[in-house]
Structure formats: C-alpha cells, structure tokens
C-alpha cells in the first residue's frame, strides 16, 4: 500500500514492538463490533505510545465519524492528510502528532490521529512505521471480523429462506385444515407479514367495490382516518363474487424501513393462492357434504316410496293383473296399486306427482295415506277425487300436483268406473284390436284448491279385453339422441298389436321394448304401468 509521508520523530525497541503488535492482533481479533474493536485499538496503541491521545475516525459516505466515541469528528478530520490521486493512503509525521489515512477493504476510509501532549520526546519515523503496522493489524482484524459477520449474516439469511419455505408449506397445510369458524385468510396474513418482515398488513374482502370485511395485522394496525392506505405490496384473488386483497406495509430492517423485494411479492402471492385454494376446497367440501346429505335424504325417501308401492297385487278371480314401477335414479313420484274395497270391488290406481325428489316422495306418501283412508270409508269415485284434490292442494306447494287415474272394477260383472285426474289417456283394448281411450275426469289433484266437479265414466270389460294404466315415463322415455319412445313406437300400436296370454308377460314385453329403444341412455323418469286382462 502506497502512502505519502509528510515529516518525522521516535519509539521503543524491536522486541517490544513485536510483542505489542502480537498483543494487538490477539485483542482486536476478539472484538464483535467495529465500535468494540476501535475501543480496544485505542487502548492498545495508546498504551504502547505511553498514554498518548488517539482518535480513530471513519468515513463511509462523505461524513467522518469518530468511532472511538470522541467529539468533533468532522473538525478533527480536517487534520488528516489527503491521499494523492491513485494512492490509497497518506500519512503525516510531526514532532507531536502522527496522522494516517487509509482505505479499508469495504471501501470506507479510516483515519488515525495520535497526539503527544506534554514535553516528552517527539515522534520519529520509526513511530510512524509502528503506527502503520498497528493500523495494518486493525485492518486485518477488521477484515476478519467483517468476514465473520458476513458469514453470520449469510447463515441467518439462508436459515431465513429455509424458514420461509418451511412456513409456506406449513401454512398451506394449516389453511387447508381450517374449516368452520376459523378462516384461513387471517392465518395467511399473519404468516405473510412475519415472513416478509412487514410491520403491518391488511386483508380486505370486497364485493362490488364495497368492503365486506377488513382485518389488520397486528390488531389496531389500521391507520388513523378512514382512507385506505396505498403502497407496500399486494396480492388478490376473486372467489364467490368477492375480491380478497392482501396488502403488506413497511418492510422492517435493523436500519429502518426498506423496500419489499421480489421474494416478498412471491411469498405473498403464494400464500394468497393457498388461501384461494383452501376456500375453494372448503366450498367443494361443504357442497359434497350437502350433496351427500341430499343423497341420504333421497335414499330414505326412495325407501319410503318403495314401501308404499305394493309388493304383490291381489288375485282377482277371472282376471289377470300385473304392475311394475321402475324408479329413475332420483326419487320420483309415481304410484300404483290395486286395493280391494269393502264392497268386493277393486280400486286400480296409478298416479304421478309433478316433480321429483324428496318433496315429490313426501306428496306421494300423503296421497297414499289419504287414498287408503277414503277408500276404506267407501267414498264414491267422484267424491274420492274431489276430496283428494282438496287435501292435496293444502298439503302441497303451488308447483306440486298429482295426475292420477282411478278405475273401480266390479269383478263379477266386469263393470268399470273410471276417472282421470289430468292423467294421460288410459287404453282399453277390445278383442278386435281397437283401442278405447278413457279420459273423462277433471283437473290434476292439488292443482287448484276448489271443489272441482269431477266426472267419471263407466264401461264393462268383456272377456279377453284388456286395460293399460301407465305414467308418462313410458311414452316419454328417450334414447341417446333425445328422441321420445312415443314418437317411434306409439304405445297404442304396441298395445293393439301385442296380446300375450298373461299380464306379467305383457308388462315384461312392454318394458323390454322401451329399454330396447332407449338403449344405454339414462332413465330420466319413473316408469310405472298397471295391466289388467279379463279371461
């Protein structure tokens, strides 16, 4: 290192000098801070030069500072020599003072002023060389200390990165576990603030620009006044019609507030995404639970409905009767039965509730209860329909009603009294293959709460004549191209042209025909039919 010497004065012997330098190296190496190192340097050098006054100055960004704690650093720095262009140091030797300036490895300048008070001997060139050596020791130990500090800072920084990654993973797991009362965004805000060293943060949930929720970290971190604070870093996502915005402010450091960096932004965005995913999962989880609950309800309703339907139909002497109900996936609202009446007749009933699901099943259940009660009471058919219309009106919502077809059969005479409550036409097949449609009756049950005057019609079934009651699940069965069974295979044609020897066979053949038409297409409505033939 080149220095400029200005003048000259005297020191101790070489042995004493070496010992003092060794001692200086040992003492200065143990210092943890520049301030501590400077204080030790002043003690060691001052002692070597017999208690002379020493000031150690340092210049980092223009201004000089006395790092040994002395006053008037700026004024005293005026006594320091100025290195010539291209030189890294300069020194001045006078009889009662030595002054050296040197550049340190970190780019700062260090300056020493050693003053001899009183009347002792004057400084020599050898003294100046010794002081230079002391400064070299200072420089080396400072370099070592800086390296140690850098190493410590690096380890701290690496540990902090590990901590950030670990916390990111942990937070992801934690927010995904949160359900019910605790919401994941508060935890994420805390973690984001601590991982980025933000002094405060806020989460705002807004809908259409209006703040629905606002939470600050730490509590009470909201600025005075109502105006939202800008600046810092932010991340946002939309969910459920709301916008969730995280904002962090005032990145802390030991030297004051510093700007957030790219890593901070990435961390905040990652945490924000985790919360977004967590909220979506929470929503889907709740939806799945709700669906599961609905499916359970539907299963219960289906079970109730299946219990209402007849396990077997009564044997009617001189007749053959068969029925079927094939429910679709969801609970439907179809019903059929053949109920012996107290007077020896039989009530054949088929019904279809508008709509599906649990409400439809419940309405069928009510219908069944009222029907059996009224039949036991021996009500005439039109009165039965009128009563059912009233009670179903009161038991159902506005959009729920029941279409039904009722046929009272006197098996001894073949007499048949029928009534259609808004149901699709029922067919009687005569022995010559012609079909008679039975449509007389009235409005669907429960459609209007009024004393509607239903009408019935009568006919007599002759030998070999057949009656088919069915619900719209048969004519409206669809194939994969959404074509209706009724369009390609009119039910009337099937009934007219198909006359197997038994009712069971007819029902089986009809269902097979429908299934052949629909193929693998899902069944979207209940299929129900009741078939009677007179031997």
């Amino acid at each position: 290192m080149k220095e400029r010497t200005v003048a000259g004065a005297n020191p101790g012997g070489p042995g004493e000098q070496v010992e003092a330098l060794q001692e200086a190296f040992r003492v200065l190496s143990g210092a943890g801070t520049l301030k501590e190192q400077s204080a030790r340097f002043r003690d060691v050098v001052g002692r070597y030069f017999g208690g002379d006054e020493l000031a150690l100055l340092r210049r980092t960004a223009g201004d000089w500072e006395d790092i040994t704690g002395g006053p008037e650093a700026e004024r005293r720095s005026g006594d320091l020599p100025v290195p010539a262009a291209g030189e890294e140091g300069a020194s001045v030797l006078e009889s009662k003072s030595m002054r050296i300036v040197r550049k340190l490895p970190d780019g700062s300048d260090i300056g020493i002023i050693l003053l001899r008070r009183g009347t002792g001997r004057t400084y020599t060139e050898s003294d100046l060389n010794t002081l230079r050596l002391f400064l070299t020791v200072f420089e080396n130990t400072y370099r070592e200390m800086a390296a140690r500090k850098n190493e410590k800072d690096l380890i701290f920084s690496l540990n902090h990165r590990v901590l950030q990654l670990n916390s990111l993973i942990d937070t992801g797991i934690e927010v995904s576990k949160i359900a019910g009362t605790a919401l994941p965004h508060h935890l994420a805000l805390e973690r984001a603030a601590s991982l980025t060293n933000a002094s405060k943060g806020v989460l705002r949930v807004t809908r259409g620009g209006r703040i629905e929720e606002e939470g600050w970290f730490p509590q009470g971190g909201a600025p005075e006044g109502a105006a939202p604070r800008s600046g810092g870093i932010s991340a946002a996502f939309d969910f459920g019609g709301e916008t969730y915005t995280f904002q962090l402010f005032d990145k802390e450091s030991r030297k004051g507030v510093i700007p957030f960096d790219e890593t901070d932004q990435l961390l905040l965005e990652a945490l924000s995404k985790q919360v977004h995913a967590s909220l979506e999962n929470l929503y889907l989880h709740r939806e799945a639970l709700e669906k599961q609950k609905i499916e359970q309800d539907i299963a219960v309703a289906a079970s109730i409905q299946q219990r209402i339907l007849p396990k077997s139909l009564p044997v009617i002497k001189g007749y053959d009767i068969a029925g079927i109900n094939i429910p679709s996936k969801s609970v439907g609202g179809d019903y059929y039965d053949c109920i012996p009446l107290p007077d020896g007749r039989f009530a054949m009933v088929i019904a279809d509730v508008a709509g599906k699901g649990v409400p439809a099943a419940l309405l069928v259940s009510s219908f069944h209860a009222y029907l059996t009660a009224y039949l036991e009471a021996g009500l005439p058919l039109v009165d039965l329909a009128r009563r059912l219309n009233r009670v179903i009106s009161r038991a159902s919502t506005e959009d729920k009603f029941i279409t039904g077809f009722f046929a009272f059969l006197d098996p001894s005479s073949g007499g048949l009294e029928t009534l259609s409550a808004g149901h699709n036409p029922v067919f009687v097949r005569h022995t010559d293959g012609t079909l008679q449609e039975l449509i007389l009756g009235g409005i669907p049950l429960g459609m209007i709460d009024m004393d509607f005057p239903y009408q019935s019609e009568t006919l007599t079934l002759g030998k070999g004549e057949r009656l088919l009651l069915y619900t719209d699940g048969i004519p409206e069965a669809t194939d994969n191209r959404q074509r209706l069974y009724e369009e390609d295979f009119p039910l009337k044609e099937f009934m007219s042209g198909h006359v197997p020897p038994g009712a069971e066979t007819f029902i089986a053949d009809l269902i097979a025909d429908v299934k052949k038409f629909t193929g693998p297409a899902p069944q979207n409505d209940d299929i129900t039919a009741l078939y009677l033939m007179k031997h």
Partner: protein
Amino acid sequence: MEQPFSLTSELRDNCLVITTSGYVNNVGGEAIAAEFARHFENGTKQVVINLGQSKVVNSVGMSFLIEIIERLQEVEGKLVFTDLDPAVEKMLSIMGLFQYAGKEKTVEDALASLPGGEKPGR
C-alpha cells in the same frame, strides 16, 4: 389476530423474566433487547423469555433475540424461552436459536433448569 407488542419483566433470584405479548418484530425486538440491556449492565446473566402471548415473530425480532444470546454467551450466561407456540418454536428452531438457548414449557420449569435456579413449588 395478533395484538400490538407489549412486555413485562421481573427479577426472580437474579434471573430476568421477560413476558411478551404481541408481534415480536423490530419494535418488539428492540423493546426486549432494551429491557435485557438494562439488567445485563447490572450483572444479570440469566434470562427467561416467555413468548406465550406472542404467536408471531419475524426475522428482525429474531435478530434481537440472537444478539441477546450472543451477549450472554460472552459472560457464560443463559437464555431460556418458554410457553412457545408450536409455530414460533419451529421458527426459532430453524433459525438455530436452540443451539445456544434453552426452551422449557413454563417459566417455572425454566427457572428450575438454570444453575442455582428455583425449584418448582418453591
């Protein structure tokens, strides 16, 4: 949500017990360090820091805690953390603080663990 920082302290048999509440950040770390320095200058070498009410610590706050540990090491002193929230405990562990500082469940356990410390129930 975490509260703003505050602390209380007491001396128990020459051991400084600092109890914090809220975010241990620059402000919190400085407050802890200042409280420690005040007692350290008077010769206190054993310190217990109860972080039970501090669920969030940032790295600036941690740097103050590390400084306390280093200063205590120079005089063969000891720092013990207590009542740690699992997340905070993990943070301190990753940052390597438990290589040089202890951790106990409670302040009483910490005092009992220190040389010549109070035994539980005393």
